[in-house]
């Protein structure tokens, strides 16, 4: 027959154990039964403590009439205000969320075939000169109700995601650092903005800014 000490020792190792010998001891021992009840209350608190809420990046908006309508309404409401001219706080978060949802984009080795790249860039009425670096991933993505080019450009510091956001105005260059990514949102006069980001493990913000300048210089806008 198991003694109190052995029972409680086993219970502290696994309070939810359905071991028959433990069950038999508990049934026969009121003291250990009370101890079990107390320990299970503690265990319940432990479970709740471990299940803390860590916010994950919000998913980027998927196309829907509601989302599009909401975007238009929002644009109308805030048009002409200073707030519109500045990058919204959530733009960087939305960019990160979009990239988080496409982990395969970092892995593609490329290079992307010219016709495919041209088709993707056509959405933003632009082309890219060779100076930007080798493009290893190119996709036309839905982002905040618009189709935007999502590229990954290879650099000496590692792969860089570039999203051309012609519909997202930015008043000034903004750095961000969240969810394992470092990046910048660069304003482009009359053409919205460009978001660039790298994995934090690959680069410092200075690397991202240098690459941003290079990519921006390599963009040729179509009329």
């Amino acid at each position, binding site marked *: 027959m198991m003694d109190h000490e052995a029972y409680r020792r086993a219970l*502290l*190792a696994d309070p939810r154990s359905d071991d028959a010998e433990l069950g038999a001891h508990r049934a026969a021992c009121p003291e250990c039964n009370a101890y079990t009840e107390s320990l299970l209350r503690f265990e319940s608190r*432990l479970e709740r403590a471990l*299940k803390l809420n860590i916010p994950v990046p919000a998913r980027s908006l998927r196309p829907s009439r509601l989302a599009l309508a909401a975007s238009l309404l929002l644009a109308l409401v805030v048009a002409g205000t200073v707030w519109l001219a500045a990058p919204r706080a959530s733009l960087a978060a939305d960019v990160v969320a979009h990239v988080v949802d496409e*982990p395969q984009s970092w892995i593609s080795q490329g290079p992307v075939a010219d016709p495919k790249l041209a088709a993707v860039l056509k959405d933003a009425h632009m082309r890219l000169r060779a100076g930007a670096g080798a493009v290893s991933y190119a996709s036309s993505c839905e982002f905040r109700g618009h189709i935007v080019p999502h590229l990954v450009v290879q650099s000496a510091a590692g792969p860089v995601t570039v999203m051309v956001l012609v519909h997202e105005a930015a008043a000034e260059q903004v750095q961000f650092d969240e969810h*394992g990514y470092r990046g910048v949102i660069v304003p482009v006069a009359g053409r919205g903005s460009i978001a660039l980001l790298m994995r934090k493990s690959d680069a410092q913000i200075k690397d991202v800014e240098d690459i941003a300048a290079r990519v921006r210089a390599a963009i040729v806008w179509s009329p």
Partner: protein
Amino acid sequence: MKDRFGGNQKRARFQALCQSLRPDLLRFAFWLSRNRAVAEDVVQESMLRAWKAQDSLLDEAAAKPWFLTIIRREFARTFERKRFPVVDIDQLIRSEEPSLAAAEEHDLAEMRAAIFKLPDEYREPLVLQVLMGYSTAEIARELGLSGAAVLTRLFRARNQLRALCGEDTAQDPRE
């Protein structure tokens, strides 16, 4: 998860899998590292490694333990690479205060701070058991320990935790 589907479907399924598991994976990485920024980095890198290695996941039902193993390895790599300085637990708790806060129950915040104070070798099996629902045998396999060693660590983890939380430990067995 054999590639029985086209590229887009495969990608969509993998993304859905990542999306559904991410909250739990973040929690696990947080308790492992006790640092939210490190946890986010580790989970992100792990997702990339998982994507590369997805053909080794033969059964989607086993995705969670598969991801957890990748996270543990990635955390070990990160730890090696960054060589974190000696940990000041009180400073660590202060810096992660927003994550540990529990608006609904004050004693949960205290419990979380106490979990931070557990040694790594006790905290990890406890998290695997309580948060991830691992059995003793599964923890033993994941950590490369015997079943008896796992039970000893779990016993010590709760023993220390109860003392740290100011529980009445008069009836608890001693070491």
